[in-house]
């Protein structure tokens, strides 16, 4: 039963992550003022904005190609971890920043769920997991 549900669950999480990351790309690449403000605040405007955008785009693509989903989830969760660090240190949680922060947390959670479901395919971790069945 579990084996039949978990791939669907993983795909739902992947699509959520892709939608959230994907819709911010428009703002990042078009240089929307909110986005520019945000990256100015953390001192990465404009190279960082473009760089993060490209990395998020790559993560989205990887998340949708079956053979690279795990890598996409790893990249996605890394980027979101960075974003959350940003909110805690510099950006804060007021106003629309709260919304963005929550979206980052949701995306991180989605990517983590994908990684958990596909944990046996994570490089350097999967095989160790498989060999110790007492662990989750």
């Amino acid at each position, binding site marked *: 039963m579990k084996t039949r549900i978990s791939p669907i669950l993983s795909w739902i999480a992947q699509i959520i992550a892709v939608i959230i990351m994907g819709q911010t790309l428009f703002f990042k690449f078009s240089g929307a003022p909110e986005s520019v403000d945000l990256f100015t605040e953390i001192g*990465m405007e404009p190279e960082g904005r473009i760089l993060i955008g490209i990395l998020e785009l790559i993560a989205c693509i990887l998340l949708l190609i079956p053979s690279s989903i795990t890598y996409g989830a790893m990249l996605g969760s890394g980027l979101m971890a960075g974003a959350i*660090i940003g909110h805690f240190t510099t950006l804060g949680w007021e106003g629309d920043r709260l919304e963005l922060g929550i979206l980052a947390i949701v995306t991180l959670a989605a990517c983590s769920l994908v990684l958990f479901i596909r944990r046996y395919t994570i490089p350097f971790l999967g095989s*160790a*997991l498989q*060999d110790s069945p007492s*662990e989750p």
Partner: protein
Amino acid sequence: MTGKLVVNLHKLARFTNLALPFLAGLFFLAGLRISFYFHFLTVSFLFLNFLNAFYLFGQRGHSLLRNFGILGQGRYILESIGPELRQYLYLNDTEERPFNRNERSEVYRKAQNINSASSFGSQKDFDATEVKVRHAMFPIRKSQLKPSDVTFGEERGCPNAYTMKRPFIISAMSFGSLGESAVRCFARGAKQAGILMNTGEGGYPKYHLEEGCDLIFQMGTAKFGVRHPDGSLDDDKLKALAAKDSIKMIEIKFSQGAKPGKGGLLPKEKITDEIAALRGVTKGEDVISPPSHRECTDLESAVRFIRHVQRISELPVGIKMAMGNAVEFHGLVDEMKRQDVFPDWITIDGSEGGTGAAPKAFMDRVGLPLFPALKRADDILTEHEVRNRLKIIASGKLVGPGRQMIAFCLGADAIASARGHMLAIGCIQAMQCGNNTCPIGITTHDPDLQRGLEVDLKAQRIANYVQNLEHDLEELLCATGCRSVQELSFEHLYVPKDSTLNTFIGSSH
């Protein structure tokens, strides 16, 4: 500790395990104070810490990772690329098994029509174990050689006796172990070279028949292709198959060199819908042929079964076996004499192990190697005065003319080789045959990997290879002063003290 410069890996690992969280913290501070870009490193190191914590405290299966953490992974990484490193960089030209670089490159050169002459002496350690062929003081000319025809079935006056022009056979590899492209390469190559191809026990030989080369249909213990659902022989199916033009001979497989005493094995990774259909089996589990034919429970029934297949198929019928116990072989020959039924040939398969997937213990430890087995079979048949009732085909690592010549001297009438022909079409000895991941695309059904095999080009390689083998055989024959392989004998071999063949010196003839 002494003052020497030594790397204490355990200390280094403990230092690394402490340094990782510290570095993550440092990068976080740098991200805070210097530039947000440092958080790329912060995040990376957070992941590393997470992974390291799991190795040290989470998992329990790997003691090394539990003690050393992430540095311990280095050992596994290095070990995993070890086979490639050894093959490419460290092993010398005569060291590798089953085929060393010299043996492989000889086949490659033959297949690509490149001169294989080498200079400045042999790399073989032939003072100790290497068998050598004795040449004659007055070699003959090629024009003096007899044609190398071998006729199967002539001894018993079989109406469909088959004459092969060149004494080489592409040995049994089933469709299933091989992918479609590889089967086509071999079959097309066999047709071009004018040699026989053995289908292996892979069921109905669909692609072989499409290519139209001369075929030996092999009937394994599971009788794929000619079986009733319960695994017994379906006479009608056999008759229908034997009536086909391309099917020239039938081989009953009693045992095979890779796993003598065990049935064939096709790992489930390699079973496609098509293979399941051609074999009449279900998908998703290993296909394991029974260890013996259900019709053959003792010598009497086994010989009767040979006769039965000869009668039904009306073709030359041989048996394939790896030699185990010489007493049993004596018994088999006795029983053949008693019933006056002889197979038209016996394929002696050396236990050197072929392409087949086999349990390691069977591959390494069961059955006699080819040369002593071949010599013993030839001796026993001669002793019973029935050597002229059948032919002997030798198989087992006979990829180059040197070993083939020795096999001829030990009594073989023809040579069957599977791996020789695989090397000829580009096998690199990655030893992945059972995993469906063959990087050359020979023993796999993955279309992406099979893409590498250009059938027409590789078929030509087979033809070149056979052509050059024949060329070398003829030259070797001329050197011994013999006019055909039938004139070769054990006396043409120099057998040093440490060779497995040494026990046979002076024992017969």
